[in-house]
């Protein structure tokens, strides 16, 4: 396998942008990534493109707007891990020597999708969905269980949101750009007890793109190639094998595989971007990614370790809670953000001396499985 480098990154502004369609958002992210890599559109040999809602030949529709045609374009869907899936396709083709230069794109326009301003609806055959299961309900059940099992409090869940919204204020790409206190978070509208509105990520439009090539030619395009040390995608296991709903075994296993592939461990990480669609979730993910022991997620948060300036800042971008969550774009966006951090280009939200970072995205609630899919990448400067 060849060593693969990230050489170009781009993203659109994230927000509620109904006047800008998927093609415009996608085009902005691709054009920015091409400029970032000092690359002509002609140099791109293949693309993996992810979108969830209303998708049909999304990649072709976007790429024709930057002069890219007549090549292998694969359009993929994997719920919130769709972007991670696109990255895997590009990374593996380059690692195996099939192609040299490829682009991964994730894009979503939630405000113009058929589910705009609705909860993501369950499938007709989804028995639990018919019985009242929703994404907020699922995370509320996990949150209640974590409180019961480990004594975690609603204030601690709220503090995740305070932290990420604070980080988001330092990020010009973020949707919210507003500070909140624990009281603000807890007094916002109750969505599904104990989860309030400001503990939920908003509906968001946006796109992100990443260009990769073999490390041995990366310096033709950039003075700061970022090595992809691990790239893992894993589908969920049966929920009946899960001993505790607050700990997703598939997420844990995907993380362990990524650490093994990269030849390092959680203690070596300087920065993490992870899936925080609901504030309590960030605490569960700390435990699965091995940033702390099982059951000690709230203590890790309380210690300040995961804030900017702490030992291992998590979601310095603002995360899904503040940046917003254009579903298929988020898996690509986390890699854009980690690459920025490792290049030292994250400006006000820069993690000092960041050399190693982990990007995480997961998604898709499937009744009977612990998760739909998990995508993890480890990058090194």
């Amino acid at each position: 396998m060849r060593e693969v480098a990230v050489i170009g990154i781009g993203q659109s502004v994230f927000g509620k942008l109904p006047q800008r369609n998927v093609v415009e958002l996608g085009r902005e992210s691709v054009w920015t990534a091409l400029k970032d890599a000092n690359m002509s559109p002609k140099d791109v040999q293949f693309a993996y493109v992810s979108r969830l809602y209303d998708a049909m030949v999304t990649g072709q529709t976007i790429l024709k707007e930057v002069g890219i045609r007549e090549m292998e374009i694969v359009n993929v869907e994997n719920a919130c891990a769709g972007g991670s899936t696109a990255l895997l396709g590009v990374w593996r083709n380059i690692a195996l020597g099939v192609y040299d230069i490829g682009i991964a794109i994730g894009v979503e326009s939630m405000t113009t999708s058929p589910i705009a301003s609705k909860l993501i609806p369950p499938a007709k055959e989804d028995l639990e969905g018919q019985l009242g299961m929703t994404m907020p309900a699922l995370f509320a059940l996990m949150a209640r269980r974590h409180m019961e099992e480990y004594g975690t409090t609603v204030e601690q869940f709220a503090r995740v949101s305070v932290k990420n919204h604070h980080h988001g204020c330092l990020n010009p790409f973020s949707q919210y750009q507003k500070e909140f206190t624990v009281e603000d978070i807890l007094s916002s509208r109750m969505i599904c007890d104990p989860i309030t509105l400001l503990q939920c990520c908003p509906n968001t439009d946006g796109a992100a793109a990443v260009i990769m090539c073999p490390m041995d030619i990366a310096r033709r395009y950039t003075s700061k190639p970022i090595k992809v040390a691990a790239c893992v995608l894993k589908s969920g296991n049966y929920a009946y094998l899960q001993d505790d709903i607050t700990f997703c075994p598939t997420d844990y296993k995907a993380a362990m595989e990524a650490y093994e592939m990269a030849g390092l461990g959680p203690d070596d990480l300087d920065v993490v971007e992870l899936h925080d669609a609901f504030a309590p979730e960030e605490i569960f993910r700390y435990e699965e990614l091995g940033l702390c022991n099982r059951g000690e997620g709230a203590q890790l948060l309380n210690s300040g370790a995961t804030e900017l300036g702490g030992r291992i800042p998590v979601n310095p971008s603002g995360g899904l809670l503040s940046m917003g969550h254009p579903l298929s774009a988020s898996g690509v966006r986390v890699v854009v953000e980690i690459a920025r951090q490792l290049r030292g280009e994250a400006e006000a939200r820069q993690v000092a001396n960041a050399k190693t970072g982990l990007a995480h995205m997961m998604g898709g609630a499937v009744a009977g499985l612990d998760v739909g899919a998990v995508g993890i990448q480890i990058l090194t400067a």
Partner: protein
Amino acid sequence: MAERVPIREGTFIESAKGGILLANRCKSCGQTFFPKSSICFNCFSEDMEEMELSRIGKLYSFATAYMPSVHFQPPYTVGMVEMPEGMRVFGPLKIQEGERERLRVGMEMEVIIEKLWEEGETEVIGYKFKPVIS
């Protein structure tokens, strides 16, 4: 009288004792499944036998939603109940006035069968859990 149809065939029965959930068990390795599975996901055996679950389990977690879902208007409460046979079952909770604040993880819940919602002239029936009053 309105026609009553189950939310999913073969997931429950109404007995003289009350509602009973129907699961199945792999005759090769003993793994149990709810809802029933046509094969065993552990050992891939097709040799499955139906089993009735106990009527009472323990509340594993619960949540009250203040947003509508496909068939329920807020506020409505859902939960997961751990059955003695070893599985966690998700379903709506039937809560009397004032009972919501008294819900506790670990309390005993019993299976009841009743109308979930109406579709025109048809009543869709299914299982819910309600606190055991002692």
